[in-house]
């Protein structure tokens, strides 16, 4: 069952009273299934936060359809089962960790008693044990993020929407947050994650969507995006000219010397037969193979490729439009 369903969602707004109309979302469609961690990626201004705000009813949609947990997105009934950690959130400074949880828990419809029962364990989960009595103005940015995460989890929601949850958090804290996200996922909850930190997303997400200038460029599983079977990395012992002559006609890249006659380089192959051919050629030339492995693509590489490709296509389109215009 889809926890979030978005079909042809559009958002337009005016920039100022006399300003131009901005198309923040241009027909976005995506589905998030129950129990998965779904990452939403995109450069600044891509429309990620706008999409989240439409789902939560904070911003109204212009066109299209959006549902959340089977209810119209933004409806009060849908928000009852959602926990949200906004980017750059601000918790009033007069609150302590405990009273902040009490406040936001009550806003989610919880009783004070139920909040008190869950509060301590939750603070321990997010790494704020013993800090519940302290005013939030004494918290570091990382601690505030963790408190924000705690308030999002407090009422045991079915869907948690996190906007840059690890922003400002140190590596240890990030690891703790990742651990918490895994725990939530293990409980069968759904997480909708929006983050600039692609490595973080890569580490926890099942699927990602890449949004660029209000359009979805790609939706895919993280595994599918990051495996690459066409480039191998080799570490060999032998003279460089022997290696190049043995593999003549093939593209060798990323040469890295590793000592006397020890080299590391990447080679592109078409299929498994080509891999055997490369090994045979090197052995024939007397070059020893110390290590050989298929190279893995990072999510960041994939993201940059997609965004750059989109940029190139857009530039080409604009050039075409520009050429056409004078002939009109």
């Amino acid at each position: 069952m889809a926890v979030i369903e978005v079909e042809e969602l559009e958002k337009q707004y005016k920039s100022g009273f006399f300003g131009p109309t901005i198309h923040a979302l241009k027909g976005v469609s995506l589905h998030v299934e129950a129990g998965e961690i779904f990452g939403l990626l995109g450069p600044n201004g891509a429309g990620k936060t706008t999409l989240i705000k439409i789902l939560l009813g904070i911003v109204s949609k212009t066109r299209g359809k959006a549902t959340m947990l089977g209810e119209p997105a933004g409806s009060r009934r849908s928000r009852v089962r959602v926990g949200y950690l906004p980017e750059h959130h601000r918790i009033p400074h007069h609150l302590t960790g405990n009273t902040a949880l009490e406040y936001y828990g009550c806003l989610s419809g919880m009783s004070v008693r139920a909040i008190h029962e869950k509060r301590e364990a939750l603070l321990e989960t997010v790494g704020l044990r013993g800090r519940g009595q302290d005013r939030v103005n004494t918290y570091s940015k990382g601690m505030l993020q963790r408190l924000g995460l705690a308030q999002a989890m407090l009422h045991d929601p079915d869907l948690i929407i996190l906007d840059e949850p690890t922003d400002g958090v140190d590596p240890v804290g990030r690891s703790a947050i990742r651990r918490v996200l895994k725990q939530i996922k293990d409980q069968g909850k759904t997480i909708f994650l929006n983050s600039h930190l692609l490595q973080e997303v890569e580490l926890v997400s099942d699927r990602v969507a890449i949004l660029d200038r209000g359009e979805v460029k790609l939706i895919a599983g993280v595994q599918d995006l990051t495996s690459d079977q066409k480039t191998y990395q080799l570490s060999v012992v032998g003279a460089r000219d022997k290696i190049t002559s043995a593999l003549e006609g093939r593209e060798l890249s990323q040469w890295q010397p590793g000592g006397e006659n020890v080299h590391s380089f990447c080679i592109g192959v078409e299929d498994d037969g080509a891999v055997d051919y490369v090994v045979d050629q090197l052995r024939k030339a007397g070059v020893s193979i110390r290590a050989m492995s298929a190279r893995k693509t990072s999510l960041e590489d994939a993201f940059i490729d997609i965004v750059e490709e989109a940029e190139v296509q857009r530039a080409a389109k604009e050039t075409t439009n520009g050429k056409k215009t004078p002939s009109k």
Partner: protein
Amino acid sequence: MRPYLAIIKDSFREAFASYVLWATLVVITLFLLVLLPIHFDVDQATEFRDGEISNWDRLLTDLRDAAEGGDESPGGHIWSMLTEDQQKLVDDYLDGNSGDEPGPPGGRRMRQQRRFLGGLNKLLGNAELYDEAAFADVEVSEEILHAVRNSKDGSDELKAAQRELIAATFPRSFDLFSDGAVYVGYLIWKHDSPLPVAPSELNGLIRSGLAISVSLIFGWGGILVSILVTSNIIPRTFEPGEIVLLLSKPISRPLLFVSRFIGGCAFTFVNVAYLLVGLWLIAGMRFGIWNHRLLLGIPVYVFLFAVYFSVSAFIGLRFRNAIIAVGFTIVFSFFLWALSFTKGIFDQVVLAPIRITTIVPAGDEVLVTNSSKETLIWQQQNWKPVFNESGQQGPQFQRRILFADSHFHPQYDAGNDRIVAMKPGTGWSSNDVIAGTRASNWERTELGRTPDSILALFVDGKGRVICVGMSGIYDFVPPDPEEQKNLEILEAASGGFWKPPSRTGTKSLHAEGFARVRREDSIAMNPATSALSIYRGGTLTNYPQLEDGTYGAGETVALQHANTESDARQAVVAAGNTVLVGYEDGIVELVGGESREFDTLEGDTIKSSETSSNGRFVAFLTHEGRVWLFDCEAKQPLSIRIPAQGNVSAIAFRGENELLIADRYTRVRAIDVEDGHVLEQFAPSDSMIMKAYFWVVKPLHLVLPKPSELNTVVTTLMTEKESEVLTAGQQADANLQQERISVDTWTPVWTSLAFTLFMIGLSCWYISSRDF
């Protein structure tokens, strides 16, 4: 409700986390601690105070008269104890001499009274003041007699007892506040002189003091501080980082704002509640005044704050900036003050003086008088002044205040085709009566001077000018030819510089034993029979006009409503074919064989009455501007629709069944009393200044809140005064027919509430329709 209660609770949490709140609470604590040691002590009264001698003329006359009979009488004995200076002072006072007191007569008499009071108070400590033989017939308690006989010379006990003794000797001249005196003190210090209040007035004094202090603290300063402190609540709540988190919760946006708004009042609530509960406890524990109404000031001041906060909140929501919110709110409050001030100027200086107060149908013409006691006639679609005194008119608003307590109600004398009236502002012991004929274009001439202070003037069926004074009923007669000749000689001798006071004489029309009429009594004449009806403090007497034109002995009629509570209650009498009495509580009593009461005026205070020329219809006008009509034939109220009910300022009958009503300051309309149709209208076109008032100032004042006027609500609540009623001349309400300034207590509350709800609604609409 839980989420919204959480928001309100959070506001209190925020308030208590604020250093400013604790600072203001410390200031309030200090203020309460300063008040705590104040104490009022009630001791025996050992001297007479200002105001305790209710009738100076009678007291001093009685004293001087008693002196002629020797010192065997109590008055004679007291006179003998007075110093020569004191005795001369009494003579000067009674004979109208300036003596040792130069200056205008009014101030001189007051100074003479004070000097005499000082001398009398000195006598109180003199043990020789009591003479057993002289005071034998004076009725006082054994306790007082014991004290005057046995107390030491100069002791407080002696002074207190002799004070009671003298007051008992002249019971009609003294009105002692009480036998106690109030002293104010602080910690161990106590003031030597008593306060000029009776112990019974102390309660009211403390209540008023509390109301004034609270009003001063919160009326301006407290509200301003509250606005400054709370101005950031809404902008901060709607900062992107906070509002996005709040809006992601399952709550309603309008209710989020309303909860925040209510919570924003927490700061004011805590301060007001602390101060008022503190004052309530001090008043209760220190002075025994458990005035629970004081606590009603808490919601009123929180409401007053809410009026301003609704503006501050909307601006804070719109611009997300506390400085803009504070700046706009302060500008707005100044605008409200300026608007209120402008309306006050319009009302008191421009409009009130031209408000029609009486209508005088004069044949086929209509004359009116206004609050400035000017007479106007309807000519060429406007009111033109006629019948006015030449020279020294002065500004209208000044004349209005100057003559506020003057009865100026011209009457039309059809027989002579003229109007007659008492000249406004003339003396206390007699009045100038003036007349103006149509032939002379209503030019004012002097008709004569009455021998008494006149309370009402009528023209009877014989065309005579009938004056009802304090001591009788009079008619004007031609002067004695001999006397007139002498006066003319004197006038000629002075070269015309000196004018004789009157060229006419007066004739008494009343029967022997005519009971004195007081200023607060009401008099009416039946236009059909010329019979007079006089209501005197709870009794009604009808005086029939005899064939020779004099008035017979009065027949006193029993009144049902007057006797139920107090004989002294005030009323207005109307004399048609049946006599009706309208009371100050809005009840109208039909007097006669089948006495009945009508309670259809819903508590309005009756102001005046008019009767149609055939005596069939009677109309009562109330101070609230409503008209009540009665058909004396059917003995039933008339239920026709009367235009401008609630705004009527004057009424009069023209002929048998036309009622003229004045409203909207200068408009007069004639309506048919049978069906309520408007027959004719006399309405001048509005001047620019009137247009500005009716189209700009008044609508704005109506819809915008009136925070400064809300202070009146607090005073009303705390002092238990339901409404404040003063005459324009600021004298006490001596007469129901006197023009009054009613302070409207509750309209500012309703309009301020409506405005606040509008601003909250506007903010709710804004927050609901916006993306964040």
